[in-house]
């Protein structure tokens, strides 16, 4: 049970101080999640903190590789406009 940050991360630092398990760390080329530490915030918060503040759609995946914030869910930009 762990999330993953992928390459679309812009290194904005927003998630790092919010993680109740200190699982998120600064790395190159982008922040990473220590899979051994990540609890998906179970027991600490109703909603996973990193995925709740991350401004980049698609940058955080769950353990099945599913985007926690799919395209259009944060910016309101219709996905077909994003692709263009």
């Amino acid at each position, binding site marked *: 049970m762990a999330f993953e940050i992928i390459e679309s991360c*812009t290194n904005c630092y927003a998630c790092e*101080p919010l993680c109740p398990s200190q699982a998120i760390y600064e790395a190159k080329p982008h922040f990473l999640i220590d899979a051994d530490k990540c609890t998906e915030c179970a027991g600490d918060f*109703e*909603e996973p903190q990193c995925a709740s503040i991350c401004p980049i759609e698609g940058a955080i995946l769950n353990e099945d590789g599913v985007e926690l914030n799919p395209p259009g869910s*944060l*910016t309101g*930009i219709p996905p077909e406009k*994003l692709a263009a």
Partner: protein
Amino acid sequence: MELPVLNNTASEAPKGGCSAGSCGSTDDQMNHLPDSIRDKVKNHPCYSEEAHHYFARMHVAVAPACNIQCHYCNRKYDCSNESRPGVVSEVLNPKQAVKKVMAVAATIPQMTVLGIAGPGDALANPQRTFDTFRMLNEQAPDIKLCVSTNGLALPENVEEMCQYNIDHVTITINCVDPDVGAKIYPWIFWNNKRIKGREGAAILIEQQQKGLEMLVAKGVLVKVNSVMIPGVNDKHLEEVSRIVKAKGAFLHNVMPLISEEEHGTFYGLTGQRGPTNEELQELQDSCAGDMNMMRHCRQCRADAVGLLGEDRGAEFTLDKIEEMDIDYAEAMKMRAEVHAAINEELESKHKAKETKLVSIEGLKKEVTRPVLMAVATKGGGVINEHFGHAGEFLIYEASSNGVRFIGHRKTTPYCEGGDTCGDGESALDVTIRELSGCEVVLCSKVGYEPWGPLEAAGIQPNGEHAMEAIEDAVLAVYEEMRVAGKLVEKVDEQQKVA
């Protein structure tokens, strides 16, 4: 007939619908303020229109995190070619930021102000922001510190901000109505949750207003920035202006939405346009009846360095400042001398204006129509830029009431300074379009080639006032127009009655 510079008319009794003190002129906004406040802003380029000709500012990009999303912002902020808020080239840690500030302060002694404005929100990164301020308090005490914030985390941070002598805060307030807010802010992060839509906007608005009240109660100067979004909040901003003034904000800065498809923002991709120059000025003028308006904002980057309108950030990249060896104690002495010289120059200018005002007192005024003039300047309050080198023009309005600053218009320099100007023609078209409504363009020099097209567009080029003070030159040209009979024919009856 000699005309007054409007800055000096604040002592006249207010007449009609808008109080004389805040009728939108350049720094008459300063004249009716208490001395303590005028003293605080006199060398702050972002708070005083006059100061921005002389003093420089810088932003350090230590705060990349944000706690809200705005529809005019794209969080993939990495472009060195763009100048707009939220964009930076490299994010710094607090130590690097302090080193950069001291390097800039030693190199550009007229830099008086350090602001943290993102590229996210300064107060969504309180640790990084406050670490930077704490070190600067200790190591560079002659630098003024400012914060720019969306206001969401403001109330919880007011106390700590005051500890670091932050006496200028800018809050971006685009609305006071959650229904309007829902069209601007898709979500906020609040109490460990992402809150979308109207509910999020309502919390943001409440926090902004509370933060404003707390800062005012602490005696902190607050400027309110608003982004004008046609069809979304343009009508609503007059109400925003009234409310923030009533709560004690001292300056309102209405800025045009910057929105292009290539910015990848919601507004850019969905075709939301920004306001025209005319629409912006109209809104600023209608807000001016209630509020001191700022019109000289250049909407600079979150890592901008230099005078407003210029960006010398490229001289102070991380690798370059690593090589600089700064003796800050020495630099502070030199900085103090430079600041004293500028202040002396400003004071003598103020005295000269007062004398002029006395000399025209009692003269009967002839009512003449207002004229817009564009001015090319590199700073210093004088006309000292070639027409072809100007990347922006300042716009002044001359009328029988005097002269007032209206705003600025960006353009592509007609000629980058070489002997041959390959793309000069299309750049000239852009400049002529940007200067629409202006009847005169004042610059230190203007070439033969642009002269004809400018005249044909109804814009008289004028290079006869090089190195003169802007307001004096604008008034002199206006007076020439009056003598030549160019001002009387279009006076409308309403003005005659007033």
